[in-house]
């Protein structure tokens, strides 16, 4: 890796998700690649949910950080391969848990989603507060596109679950 590519990574490292400020864009897998091409430096980001309202903010954050550091780079939004929560680092998952959001389970690559005529037996989601897996889903949709709302039946705390995507 060249110095300039390293510098771009270092410049963008502090950037976090606007809605989940404990994890960085790199840890979430949104910041995919920094590459040196004949036309200059390219920074590749991958959108999460198609309609995630944070994506505009994320792109703005990347551009302004680069501008502040005096780096000229093009920001490229790349759809394929589609973003998945499986790209999230273990480190990021632990940060989510400590922040009170249950981290996503591994997605089920073995079973085609289309073949689900019925909901698969859900894996137990552990409460980020007390660790109990005695939890229930309160709502399939939560405070952001990427989360569902759960409740712990032991400590009674409601909590967000980052949905596997």
């Amino acid at each position, binding site marked *: 890796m060249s110095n300039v590519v390293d510098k771009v990574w270092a410049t963008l490292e502090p950037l976090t998700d606007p809605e989940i400020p404990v994890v960085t864009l790199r840890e979430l897998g949104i910041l995919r690649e920094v590459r040196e091409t004949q036309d200059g430096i390219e920074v590749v980001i991958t959108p999460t949910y198609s309609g995630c309202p944070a994506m505009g903010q994320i792109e703005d954050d990347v551009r302004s950080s680069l501008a502040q550091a005096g780096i000229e780079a093009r920001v490229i939004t790349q759809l394929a*391969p589609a973003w998945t929560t499986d790209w999230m680092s273990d480190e990021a998952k632990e940060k989510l848990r400590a922040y009170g959001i249950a981290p996503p389970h591994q997605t089920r690559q073995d079973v085609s989603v289309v073949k689900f005529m019925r909901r698969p037996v859900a894996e137990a989601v552990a409460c980020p507060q007390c660790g109990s897996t005695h939890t229930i889903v309160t709502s399939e*949709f939560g405070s952001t596109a990427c989360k569902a709302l759960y409740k712990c039946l032991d400590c009674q705390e409601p909590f967000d679950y980052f949905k596997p995507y």
Partner: protein
Amino acid sequence: MSTPIDYLLHLADNAVVLGQRNAEWCGHGPILEEDMALANVSLDLIGQARLLYQRAAEMKGGDATEDKLAYFRDPHEFRNYTLLELPHHGPLVGYAAANRDYATTIVRNFLYSALMVHVWDGLRQSADASLAAIAAKSLKETSYHLHHSRDWLVRLGDGTEESHARAQAAVNHLMPYTEEFWTTSPAEGAAVAARIAIDVWALRPAWDALVNGALAEATLTRPNFHGYVTEGKIGLHSEHLSYLLGEMQGLARAHPGATW
């Protein structure tokens, strides 16, 4: 002559029109969780529509943009299924004559999601790499929408006497509109020939199995239908689309080029 752009517009218009319809529940949901659910489903649908319009604009070239395609085409230029533009109530249901009937919303979302999981799954192999990428993302989101609407379909159908009656009325009202899924429009034909699209007809057995399985579990009956087939996807719409677009496009047309 139809081009692949017309097919992309068909997919985009489906998503934007259902997204706009579902968004009518925002702030008016029957319970808080469903208010959030429908708003989130709309967010996904409008996000899918944006990606598709962006791709269509790119293919069109010139001064085409996603906003021009969404806000500055008139009703007869829209290529969505008629099913998706209908209001949240059936015309023949006396007790559902208030503005919105949640059973109608759920049944519509179920019938559409049950189709689109198969469509997106197939389009992951589209000869258009951009469409294939959009399909791979949309499949994940639509699978979740299908889980949600199927759950509620069963809950309403196999629920109380009233929820059952309303769910059955919604099925009776909406099912005939799904016949439009299985006719081939010129845009679909051209896109299939170009290997951009997949032949929807081939998906019918899978869709039937999914729908029949859910209806049976919900203790609902599938009506027999042999009659008029709607033609929204060739631009012949019901009277409801103009009102929907009037609301959706009003701001952009009153203040062209406005930004926040």
